């Protein structure tokens, strides 16, 4: 479902390759359709009352994360990428969580806790 293999220099293998790429293209189209369907679902769910505002935020972010995961895994080929890319992303993940944690830290009050 990811990177189609590099095109073959041998004539009879080229046809097989083209078939392979076409299969990938079908996958990309399906992912696109899924993303649009989930956009409509997100909008619809935002008009459903899940009890609290926090619950609604959680549901919307869950759907958004799923959609973002699809984009990253399929369109950005992250489901089968080289090791170095994953390493870069692990570092990024670590630092971005640190960043969000700093925001959380801003509410920490050592005097009045």
């Amino acid at each position, binding site marked *: 479902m990811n990177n189609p293999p590099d*095109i073959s220099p041998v004539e009879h293998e080229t046809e097989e390759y083209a078939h392979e790429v076409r299969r*990938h293209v079908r996958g990309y189209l399906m992912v696109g359709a899924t993303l649009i369907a989930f956009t409509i679902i*997100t909008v619809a769910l935002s*008009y459903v*009352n899940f009890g609290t505002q926090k619950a*609604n935020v959680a549901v919307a972010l869950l759907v958004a994360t799923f959609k973002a995961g699809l984009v990253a895994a399929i*369109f*950005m080929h992250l489901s089968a990428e080289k090791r*170095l890319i994953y390493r870069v992303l692990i570092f990024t993940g670590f630092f971005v969580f640190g960043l969000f944690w700093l925001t959380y830290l801003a509410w920490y009050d050592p005097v009045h806790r």
Partner: protein
Amino acid sequence: MEIPYTVSARRDTGLWNAKVGIWLFLASEVMLFGGLFSAYIFLRLDAGPGDWPHGLLNVPVGTGNTAILIASSVTVVLAWAALKMRDLTKYRIYMAITILCGVAFLVVKLAYEWPQKFDHFGAFIKEDALGKYEQYLGNKHLLEKGLPPRKEITGHLHNKEALKDPNIKEYEIALDPINADPTNPAMDRPHFWPKPATEKIATIEKEDVQYANMFLPKHSAYFASYFTITGLHGAHVLGGVLVFCYMMLPASTRIYRHNPEHLANRVEVAGLFWHFVDLVWIFVFPLFYLL
């Protein structure tokens, strides 16, 4: 001297130069948008009840723009696949559609959504004057239902000169439906289809107003973060469109004739950036338009 690894991969990493480059760049982009999103979360969670506006953006337009971006993500990947299949005509068609989608997104944003906001007015009423404007706010009704109070009256400002002229003592507003009929249960939650300002005019005295302005970045923490994040995102869309335009130029066709894989790699890298821009929007849309 020829630069190595522009087309073929290095043996140790299995990657060509631009692939490593774009991912390092995207890592820095994650930090850039991460900082802004964390600021947004901070502002939003710290806002008191009724201080964070809801339902001020046009949801159908936002949904349409989301679909446009998703479609363009599909077409850019199809353009890349067309290059892999050595079909230059198909590549050009998909690339052109991608560019059109990007331009359409920007036009909707800059020529429709933003100007509409700049033309909309809101006045935050002072705490002790809220009762005086109860007929437009409906706070008793909201309190009974356990909903957060309304502190702002919004609509179309009739006397715009009131914003600058200190001698004018009041604002005349053609009210939004929510303030024209605040106790109507249908107004308790934002609507999908936006409704235009009503014919009902309210006069609000300036001395009762804590702060009033058009829907500009300085209007509130909400609009400050909305314009900052969508503005930065829009700049990324523009950047992507420019790169895609370059990839349609004869210079790129020459690269294709020389080595098709070289152009395919460039398109893949530009595509990765474009998908990232799409991915950011997937979070921006629910956070600003829906919640």
